[in-house]
């Protein structure tokens, strides 16, 4: 039990992610989360504004059930499997973050500077959250996949398109982390 309660090492988590991907194909579906964002648009009535969203979202129920499972998994892991919520970051990361205005990096899963309730109700905090979401949603649908569809399933199937997309993920991520984040906080 002690092993389960500790943070899981990469060499256990990576194969488990591949196993989850395998199970989705085994059950006759695919492994990709970001298409759910389109399904949520369709449920919200986006079909009235744009023909793309006129598809029958009920056919995507399996994927909605999958993301419902993700949330339940998050709840189970948080309430019963993670007594210690600190993240063992590298010392350099903690120092770098403190220099750009993030206090106590790694003392919880998420920084208060972005996800704290007080931040959420500030104009700047709200704008950062909605902008982050917007870039994620727009970018994944433009590229046709996210970390699950492109980086895990796509690279596993040796897809050239997915390799281009993942290179893009890293170009964007590096620009944000090195050149934009330091000036936002």
């Amino acid at each position: 039990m002690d092993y389960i309660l500790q943070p899981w090492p990469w060499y256990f988590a990576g194969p488990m992610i591949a196993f989850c991907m395998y199970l989705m194909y085994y059950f006759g579906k695919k492994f990709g989360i970001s298409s759910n964002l389109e399904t949520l648009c369709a449920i919200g009535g986006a079909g009235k504004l744009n023909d793309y969203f006129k598809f029958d979202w009920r056919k995507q129920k399996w994927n909605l059930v999958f993301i419902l499972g993700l949330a339940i998994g998050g709840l189970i892991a948080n309430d019963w499997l993670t007594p210690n919520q600190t993240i063992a970051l590298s010392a350099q990361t903690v120092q770098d973050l403190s220099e750009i205005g993030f206090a106590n990096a790694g003392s919880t899963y998420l920084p208060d500077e972005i996800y704290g309730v007080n931040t959420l109700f500030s104009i700047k905090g709200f704008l950062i959250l909605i902008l982050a979401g917007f870039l994620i949603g727009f970018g994944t649908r433009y590229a046709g996949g996210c970390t699950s569809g492109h980086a895990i399933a796509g690279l596993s199937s040796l897809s050239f398109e997915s390799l281009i997309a993942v290179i893009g993920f890293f170009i964007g991520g590096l620009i944000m982390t090195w050149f934009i984040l330091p000036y936002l906080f």
Partner: protein
Amino acid sequence: MKQIKFLLVGVLFGIVLSKSEVISWYRIFEMFKFQSFHMYGIIGSAVVIGIVIMYFFKKGSLKTYKGETIIVKPKEKGIAKNLIGGIIFGLGWALGGVCPGPIFVLIGKGVVAILIVLLGAVLGAFLYHVTKHKLPH
């Protein structure tokens, strides 16, 4: 009831993403700073094992539970869409510290602020389809 298997895979995946700290904003920052092997180890080992699994899909020795051959649909072609879309996604991944999977895991974790990220992501997906005929693909 037919859907319960997808719920269970989701629960397992959600627990894995939580317990391996993939849902932590800090881990994404650390990855893009190249200051830890953790995230590279997770993605790398998942892909290496994924390649083996996909190989057996193509060979036909791993089938669905109904015994059908598994065909992995190829991704749409286009350098511009994959590269530009990828860059836009990467900017959001590093800013919010989440990709789409962890957004839903964090809802379960009880993080209220993640709902704003989800709202933004749904709006972003919507706006892509509204503007896509004007974008390079």
